[in-house]
């Protein structure tokens, strides 16, 4: 009951039918991102898929920017576009990256993959919609996603998950080193 009242109030205050410029930009960038993501998984050219992934990840960074989360946006570019995609392209070039179509890019698991993707997307959309239903960002007020705000929240309220994640990543790092060294000895 309270939620619907809140939603009605939000609709009155902001108006769902007369979107602002930022909201229109957000929607358009979202459409581009979605389109790039779909092309990424449907294209038959391997390297093109990786390059479309750059567009999708970059579009996501722009969305973060529009949500005033500047720090997250740049980290997104730094980690995903700058490192993960480069690593991906490096791997593709090292192994097999023909110019033109690759005949064996499609596997028989396509329907299963589609089902999993749809389920994951539905769950995520549901969670986000349910959590932020009537939350509006006040663009003229204090910045809510600046580095300072992100940092203080991360190290005040979320220290334990942060440290746990660091330990997990460290374990993964050590594990990777151990695995790669073992293989070499086996070859000899």
């Amino acid at each position, binding site marked *: 009951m309270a939620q619907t009242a809140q939603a009605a109030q939000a609709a009155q205050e902001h108006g769902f039918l007369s979107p602002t410029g930022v909201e229109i930009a957000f929607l358009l960038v979202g459409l581009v991102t979605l389109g790039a993501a779909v092309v990424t998984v449907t294209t038959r050219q391997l*390297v*093109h898929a990786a*390059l479309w992934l*750059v567009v999708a990840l970059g579009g996501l960074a722009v969305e973060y920017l529009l949500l005033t989360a*500047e*720090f997250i946006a*740049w*980290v997104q*570019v*730094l980690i995903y*576009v*700058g*490192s993960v*995609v*480069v*690593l991906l*392209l*490096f791997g593709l*070039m*090292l192994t097999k*990256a023909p*110019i*033109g179509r690759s005949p064996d890019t499609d596997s028989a698991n396509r329907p299963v993959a589609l089902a999993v993707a749809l389920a994951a997307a539905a769950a995520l959309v549901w969670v986000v919609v349910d959590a932020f239903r009537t939350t509006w960002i006040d663009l003229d007020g204090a*910045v809510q996603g*600046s*580095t300072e705000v992100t940092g203080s929240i991360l190290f005040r309220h979320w220290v334990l998950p942060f440290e746990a994640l660091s330990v997990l990543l460290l374990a993964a790092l050590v594990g990777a080193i151990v695995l790669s060294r073992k293989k070499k000895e086996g070859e000899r």
Partner: protein
Amino acid sequence: MNDVLDVALRLLVVFAVFLVLPLVVGQTEHKVMAHMQGRLGPMYAGGFHGWAQLVADGVKFAQKEDVVPKDADRRVFQLAPAVALLPYLLVLVAIPVGPGEGAVGQVVDAGIFFVLAVMGVGVLGSLMAGWASANKFSLLGGLRTAAQLLAYELPMLLAAASVAMAAGTVSLPGILNAFEWWWLPWQIVGALVFFVAGLAELQRPPFDMPVADSEIIFGAYTEYTGLRFALFLLAEYAGIVVLCGLTTVLFLGGWHGPLGADGLGWVWTLLKTAVLAFVVIWLRVSYPRLREDQLQRLAWTTLVPLALAQIALTGIVKVAIN
């Protein structure tokens, strides 16, 4: 209206700097290299000591035919130079040359992350060029570019993080506002790591394995002609300007100088940037090219530990001061 004019004017100035400074660095490289090798360099174009040589080069490049190899991936091939060049233009917007709001294209809150993230994107241009050319030398060049970036991105980030820790902010003007002269000896190791890693990211000698002309012709750029080739060259020199400017801002105190006259801060910034650019050219003339394994070893066994040590030192001193 005033706001729009202000933004337009700032962008225009940044664009002009973007077009002029790389050419100045290029001409300086011609002359400095020549004199270090006992030659004169270009002497005729434009009359006075060949000052217009690069303008003439530009005209020549614009006249050349723009060839796309038959088996190449046309669109990616043609897009690559723009992807290589544009990031440096974007980075230039965020570098402050003097104190105050008036001397920076746009104040970015997370400035360090912005410049490092966007600079990393430029490498995608080389990768795209290397793959799309349908040429084995180009592909090898692209591979070497990627391997080099993966090795040198980490020390560069760590060195920059050290400065951010010292200043307590990640905004570039904020770092300069917090700067004190004794940061120079305090952060000197980080500065060296940052500069060396930046050189490697730009593929400048002695880290020019990806374009090693005696081994793989010209790496990822082998198949390029005319204006697109010129854009790649421009990206390299714009990269030098950006790297030297960033090192100046992060480690050498930007507009701060011993004779700190008000309103002349931008002279200090330009002067320090110019000296660093000279060092970049100097290194090209004096050092032989590193082999791939030497390059990787330098990154992983020297630069990364040094950067980590710098971060530890920064942390200790910072806690001690407080």
